[in-house]
């Protein structure tokens, strides 16, 4: 069941939105978590790198990138977090529970790419 709250409203009255005002991904989009290895503070656990999942909802409001914030960078520069859902069997080859068992997690926009 999709909830509506965290999804931004579609623009009304033909208002043209500024770049990045609309989320890059919407619920149901297939995504992949990037395989990056930043040094220092990161908020994407190792087990998630390179894994495929589906966007479950767009988190509102926009927020600062916690990783940059950890170093005092980009203060006030806000972007989007997405709550994504990754199947346990995608994370672990030998996972033996229900096929629909999943891991849900919020990930900042600069860690996500579209997966076909």
């Amino acid at each position, binding site marked *: 069941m999709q*909830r509506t*709250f965290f999804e931004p409203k579609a623009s009304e009255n033909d208002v043209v939105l500024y770049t990045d005002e609309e989320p890059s991904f919407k619920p149901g989009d297939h995504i992949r978590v990037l395989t990056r290895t930043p040094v220092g503070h990161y908020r*994407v*656990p190792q087990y998630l790198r390179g894994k495929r999942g589906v966007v479950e909802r767009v988190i509102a409001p926009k927020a600062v990138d*916690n990783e940059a914030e950890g170093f005092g960078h980009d203060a006030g520069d806000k972007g989007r977090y997405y709550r994504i859902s990754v199947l346990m069997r995608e994370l672990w080859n030998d996972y033996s*529970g*229900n096929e629909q068992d*999943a*891991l849900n997690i919020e990930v900042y926009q600069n860690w996500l790419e579209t997966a076909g």
Partner: protein
Amino acid sequence: MEHTHIHAEGEESHGHPHAAIEQTEAPGYYEIMETAVRELLIEKGLIKAGEIRRQLEVLDSRTPALGAKVVARAWVDSDFRQRLLDNGRKACEEEFGISFYDDTELIVLENTPTVHNAIVCTLCSCYPRPLLGLPPDWYKIAPYRSRMVREPRKVLAEFGTHIPDDVALHVTDSTAQVRFLVLPLRPAGTESFTEQQLAALVTRDAMIGVIPVTLENQESVS
């Protein structure tokens, strides 16, 4: 250390010996660093000692009883339940005046007959503190944090919770801006319960999602 003592008469004696509460080890590296930073901040006038004390008082004032009230209200009031699921923070603030002093959002995860939710923070100890207070120790240490994403059904079984094979288990790893609360299933046989009686059944662990709400807590209803 097996040192015990008995309170001297005239002190607030509670009639049994127990280990003295005292600091016996030298403070560690991070403890010293925290003290040094805190003293510098106070010395430079950026914060006052009273503000730290006050914040500790606020932290200690929040307990799972708050979360239990929210859950019980959601069980008896479907309109509130929907508002809670749509925007957890807003619903808690509007309905109960629960302030989210740490400026986190709240997503409430509703258990259903086909989906069971549980919460972990693999990277640290993110927890809905404004609503439940401080997290339990087991929530903060490595075994729960690492195993809950690797073999969650086994971990839940160790809590005595056996999730049926035909129920999907959704584990939420809490890592950044948002905190999570599990809205457990209302147990059968509670149709005649008052909201207050329902709240008394809801425990901290049920709102983390490691156990269901059962009638076993009924004795504690006064």
